[in-house]
């Protein structure tokens, strides 16, 4: 297991890139997810269709296929991004579909009577949404959104390998070959991912249980 101690810098650098990649992708995913959810509940049928198509496409395409399609396709339409940016866009667009569905389903758990009552007492659209619907919906979204964020950390490994971003997974792959000690190196990677995700799992479950309510 010396190989882990000898390459600690590489692991730590990889962890930092994985966290940074996941964080930026999650921000993009929430922005896209918010739009997708808004589209899907919009009064315009065309927007609803667009939202549904977006979700279906990304629920139907394996992440690696999307990453490679992006990698080979975008330069062809004149859009060239550095690998890290590409990975953020790939992960953000992919995860955006999940976030969109999580937001929509969270809003759907708020009984329609809540919105109707809010309108009946004369609240405006943004007041209905901001003061009545979202506060209730957000509590039920903690679990799904946390689960999506953890999946994103795992998925970042796929995007990074596809785009050669030097995250934890990519560096471990390189290290496994260069040191010729794949068992030691990848065991270290396993532990590193556990350190990244297990506290998160615990936190998400605790928060979700703390804030959920029974109707």
């Amino acid at each position, binding site marked *: 297991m010396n190989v882990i101690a000898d390459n600690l810098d590489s692991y730590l650098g990889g962890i930092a890139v994985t966290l940074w990649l996941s964080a930026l992708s999650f921000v993009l995913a929430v922005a896209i997810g918010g739009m997708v959810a808004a589209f899907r509940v919009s009064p315009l049928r065309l927007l609803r269709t667009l939202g549904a198509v977006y979700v279906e496409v990304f629920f139907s395409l394996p992440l690696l296929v999307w990453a490679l399609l992006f990698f080979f396709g975008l330069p062809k339409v004149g859009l060239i991004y550095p690998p890290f940016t590409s990975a953020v866009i790939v992960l953000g667009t992919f995860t955006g579909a999940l976030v969109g569905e999580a937001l929509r389903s969270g809003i759907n758990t708020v009984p329609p009577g809540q919105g109707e009552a809010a309108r009946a007492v004369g609240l405006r659209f943004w007041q209905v949404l901001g003061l009545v619907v979202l506060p209730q919906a957000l509590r039920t979204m903690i679990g799904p959104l946390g689960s999506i964020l953890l*999946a994103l950390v795992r998925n970042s490994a796929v995007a990074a390998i596809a785009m050669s971003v030097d995250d934890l*997974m990519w560096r471990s792959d390189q290290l496994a070959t260069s040191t010729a000690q794949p068992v030691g190196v990848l065991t270290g990677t396993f532990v590193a991912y556990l350190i990244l995700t297990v506290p998160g799992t615990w936190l998400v479950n605790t928060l979700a249980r703390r804030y959920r309510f029974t109707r």
Partner: protein
Amino acid sequence: MTTASFLDPPGPRGRRRQQVATVVTAVAVVAVTVIAVRRLADQGQLDSDRWDIFAQRSVWIFYLRGFARTLQAGAVGGVLSLTLGLGLAFGRLARGRPVRWAATAYIEAFRAVPLVLLMFFAFLGLPRLGLDLGPFWSVVIGLTGYNSAVFAEIFRAGILALPAGQTEAADAIGLRYWQSMRFVVVPQALRAMVPAIASQLVVLLKDTSLGALVSYEELLRRAQITGEFARSPLQALAVAALFFAVVIFGLNHLARRLERHRPTPVATADIPAETLLATGAAGAVGAAAPVQAPG
């Protein structure tokens, strides 16, 4: 699909505005599509010689055989994951502490790491330990390592969601632990979890494409090979992507039709949100209790 209940129904001016917005959106969508297609055409990506490999039957057969391998790895991985997952669920619910701790540790660890890592470990690491199984089994081991942990959590959620009266009644009529599991608990738990199981199987099939990274010649790897060979990587990938999208879209729809109007378990970090969201049980995801259907 309904609009949000908190929107006021539009009046005449609102309807007008909606029509304008529809037209603006339509124009925007068409414009983006046209620009993208024109750029692709300018780069010669739509030229017929980029695509004419797909006029050959042998290329399609190459793809289809690749897809058969996708299904193969998915089927073997699926069966192993379900079996191991059921065992792990029993283990996590067992009364004996060592068994419970071992099962819990496995589940918590293996569902928390990337599936690619498990595949890489099986592909690069296991041969060093004297276990050279080749790409197919590397893919299967990777798929099983992750998905057995997820299935274990799905089964456990199903078993725990069963009203306590069921096991109490089984105890009362004198069934032993395994009899009560076999005849009372598991059949009901499985039935309740069918949508989640089906949807996770689709996720598993999607993840089979990661086999391309460990040189398993499934559909995606074969698309890459075709692309390099014909010097049109984008076209070869696009065809494979369409293939994946159509098949998985269909399977997702089938999985959704299995959805009965039952409360879906709470989506927490235990069961991936993707699994529950894909079942289309959207209204109930994240709810601690069944919610009345709107309208």
